[in-house]
């Protein structure tokens, strides 16, 4: 049984955390309307499952993890729908996420969503929450070496998904031409 957090606390969460979660949701959506649908589901799940959050886990990290799960579910549904459309010989309405450089971070989130669970959790805690290796290891109940190795593998995967371009003011990240792996 979950203890309800609605309404007051959830309102504060929505106001504080929606901007970051929007970046994550966009990685799994083909447009702003879809991203909003994903966020709606995220907050509904968050309201119902707030008690499932393990003690000590930062709220922001938990919400990002929920968003990644909802995003992947959404992506799977869309892929199933696209396959059904193909089977019936109809043209699918599903479109890939827009190739807009503004959303580069969102595309990286899509890659994070495809990582194994431990790597995902380590990326969220180390990169987003900026916890130390020791804090992350304690929170996940893993050895520090495991945390380091997981982050290293996750970053290697993320590096494969981006290309660096020299620019007059320095370097910048751009989406590689081959795009993000469609297998996610």
């Amino acid at each position, binding site marked *: *049984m*979950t203890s*309800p957090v*609605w*309404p007051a606390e*959830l*309102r504060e969460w*929505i*106001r504080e955390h*929606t*901007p*970051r979660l*929007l*970046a994550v949701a*966009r990685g799994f959506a083909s447009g*702003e309307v879809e991203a*909003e649908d994903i*966020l*709606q589901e995220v*907050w*509904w799940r968050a*309201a119902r499952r707030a008690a499932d959050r393990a003690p000590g886990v930062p709220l922001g990290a938990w919400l990002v993890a929920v968003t990644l799960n909802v995003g992947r579910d959404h992506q799977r549904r869309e892929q199933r729908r696209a396959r059904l459309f193909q089977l019936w010989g109809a043209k699918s309405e599903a479109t890939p996420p827009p190739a807009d450089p*503004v959303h*580069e*971070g969102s595309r*990286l*989130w899509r890659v*994070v969503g495809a990582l194994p669970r431990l790597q995902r959790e380590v*990326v969220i805690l180390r*990169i*987003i929450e900026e916890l130390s290796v020791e804090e992350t290891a304690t929170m996940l109940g893993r050895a520090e070496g495991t945390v380091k190795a997981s982050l290293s593998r996750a*970053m290697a995967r*993320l*590096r494969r998904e*981006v290309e*660096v371009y020299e620019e007059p003011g320095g*370097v*910048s*990240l751009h989406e590689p031409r081959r795009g993000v792996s469609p297998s996610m």
Partner: protein
Amino acid sequence: MDQHHDELDGMIGAKLREVPVPPLGLTARLEAGVTRKSREAERMTLTEGVSVVAACGLLGVAGGPVATLVALLVGVAYARLTILVEA
């Protein structure tokens, strides 16, 4: 190579930490959406609970007064449990 990787990792981390400005009214729409879904779920649970109690009552009537009482108690317990779980 390590320095290049470190630099790249830093940029990837910065991209992941980027927080976009949400479209106007998004948070209000999300709040309203959760409220609406919450009320819908509550209504559904109550309807479900009442239906179960009624069905148990009708079944019990066919079996006599003791059966009616037992069926109603089971129905109320089920409805109460459903409401608690859904909450």
